[in-house]
């Protein structure tokens, strides 16, 4: 049984189709990453899973239940925009959210999570006194304090500094190790690549990618050269068999045409500058994302 299963789900707002004929299955215990440009339908899909929005067509099953709201207490949701009662005290707020879901006292869990995320000293302070990063960690605790079976996080790393992002990342992976299914959306392709068992991409309301990172990259083949040179992108113009150069500053990615001769490319680059590294790789998730959703996107594939 999938933790979350969508079958042919469509949602429109007026004349705008936010999500169109969407199907996906989230295996239990997995980390499932939602990627896609702004306004592509990620949040709408997450809200429909949470029963906050109702689909116009299609079927949504959560933990095997298709009745609306039947499993609401077994899953938990952290929206993209953080929403906390500013005048409540930190521990009181956590107890409120925990009791709302479970109906039992959650003081022990609250103290455990506060300690785990370094907020113990703030337990009796009002939420309005917390910094943005601390508020975000508090929102995360409020989401997981009820010990849900499925956790849905909308942009959990947005706005966090690397230290706090690492704390949240570790907490998510620990939850996964305890059997919790994690579904989260992100714009950070690096996070999606490193954390997600499955990656799902939605673009203009339609699913365009769905599967393991390996399977997704396999679809695009080994068509990328990643290299470092003395002269950077300036030395990589008009190379034979190269259709696009992505300049990342100290490193460049070259996208090859299907008939590209990598030896000829290497020879040409070496004739122009000194080469420090030259790897033939599969495209990164970032590159795939840009190919699908970037301004040069030729067509929208359907996964």
């Amino acid at each position, binding site marked *: 049984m999938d933790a979350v299963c969508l079958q042919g789900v469509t949602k429109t707002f007026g004349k705008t189709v936010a999500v169109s004929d969407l199907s996906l299955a989230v295996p239990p215990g997995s980390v499932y990453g939602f990627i896609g440009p702004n306004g592509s339908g990620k949040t709408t899909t997450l*809200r429909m899973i*949470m*029963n*906050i*929005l109702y689909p116009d067509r299609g079927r949504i099953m959560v933990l095997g239940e298709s009745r609306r*709201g039947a499993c*609401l*207490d077994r899953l*938990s*949701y*952290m*929206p993209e*925009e*953080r*929403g*906390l*009662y*500013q*005048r*409540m005290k930190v521990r009181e707020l956590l107890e*409120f*959210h925990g*009791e*709302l*879901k479970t*109906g039992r006292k959650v003081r022990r869990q609250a103290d455990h999570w506060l300690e785990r995320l370094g907020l113990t000293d703030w337990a009796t302070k009002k939420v309005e006194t917390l910094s943005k990063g601390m508020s975000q960690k508090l*929102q995360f605790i*409020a*989401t997981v304090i009820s010990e849900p079976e499925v956790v*849905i996080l909308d942009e959990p790393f947005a706005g966090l500094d690397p230290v706090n992002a690492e704390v949240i990342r570790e907490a998510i992976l620990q939850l996964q190790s305890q059997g919790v299914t994690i579904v989260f959306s992100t714009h950070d392709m690096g996070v999606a690549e490193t954390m997600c068992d499955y990656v799902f991409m939605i673009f203009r309301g339609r699913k365009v990618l769905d599967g393991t990172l390996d399977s997704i990259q396999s679809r695009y083949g080994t068509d990328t050269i990643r290299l470092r040179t003395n002269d950077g992108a300036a030395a990589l113009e008009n190379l034979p068999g190269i259709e696009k150069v992505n300049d990342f500053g100290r490193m460049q990615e070259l996208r090859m045409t299907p008939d590209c001769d990598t030896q000829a490319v290497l020879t040409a680059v070496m004739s122009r500058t000194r080469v420090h590294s030259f790897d033939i790789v599969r495209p990164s998730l970032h590159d795939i994302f840009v190919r699908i959703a970037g301004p040069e996107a030729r067509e929208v594939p359907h996964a």
Partner: protein
Amino acid sequence: MRKTLRLVRREYKAAVKTKGFIIGLVLAPIFMGGGLIAFAVFKDRVDTTDKALAIVDRSGVVAQAVVEAAENRNENEIRDEKTGKKVKPAYAVELVEPDQTDLENQRLELSNRVRRGELHAFLDIGPGIVHPGDDPNASRIAYYAKNSAMDDMRRWLGWPINNRLRQLRLADAGIDESEVKDLFHWANVEGMGLVSVDVASGDIQKAKKTNEIEAILVPIVTMMLMFLMVMMSVPGMLHSVMEEKTQRIAEVLLGSISPFEFMMGKLLAGIAVSLTSSAVYLIGGVLVIRHMGFQGYIPYAVLPWFFVYMLLAILMLGAFAAALGATCSEPKDAQSLTFPILVPALIPMFTYFPIVREPMSSFATWMSLFPPFTPFLMLLRQATPGGVPPWQAIAGLLGVIAFTLAFVWAGGRVFRVALLLQGTPPKLGNIVRWALRG
């Protein structure tokens, strides 16, 4: 229900544990009855500076009586009996000979003396004042002052002048005043309720005296208390929902509870807060009134109706407010919607006076049977000495219950749809569409 009650607990604590609630609890009745309290507190705070009055008595027979009355007043009435402190101004009367040649010029000169502050006012008594004839100007008494309409001295002058005129008229008629004292006995028409039969004993029960306090003040205070409770909870609900929407708290909560549970949590918390406030006011009010010995005026029979109507009014108007709050994306939207949600409470405030004067009129009956007004106007009528026929109370209650259910149902639909919409200003067409179609 568990989740709703948990939300109620949070909302209730958030509301009553604030300084604002405590201060509001004290200040709200002060603001509502501020005029009456200020009048009671400051009624004796008068200007005690002595006041000079000039009298031009063209009849020649009245002024001296005023002089004597003023002297008597200055001697006996202007000081507090216990402390001896001066609490009223003394009146100094100056008699001015009438200028028979240029009366208007004399009035101008006296007016200028008033302007310069030498006089407080001057009195012009017509020559025919004792026996008024066909010429109204001859029997006229005119009081000239900077603010003659609101002047204690003018009001005071009526008694000594008319008393003197009565004496003069009796003397002219050859009647000894001491023999006709009953002539001036003023008989009051006493207001009584209706005679009834005691159900238990079968004895005839005497009618009770009625008065203005019972007939007007008690119903108005009862209705004002209802208005106060609605004012203290309903607009707050609009702003609270708007805040939780704009601060994204609503979306977080919707991950745990349904929109209807969310809305009901806020409504029930509003009722709980109002029950707390009203209990404080009613218990405090009853204790104070009993202590003052006016327990006969407490409308105990109406109190259960008060609580039932309050519960329904807050549910009905609160659902309306919560729904409109959910349509707001910024504070100015909420500000512009505060007035519309209070219209059902404000119209009864504009119309209560004719209704309390004639509580059984057709106007009163139909207005009080219109469900949004029933909690205010039916309660007002029920608190009058005669009450209302039982069928009207029941019909009013059923109407309010039906309206409340409809408001909560429609409000819940609007609330659910609007709560997640950002950046869309509230439009009547959208609200109606969401209420009807969900």
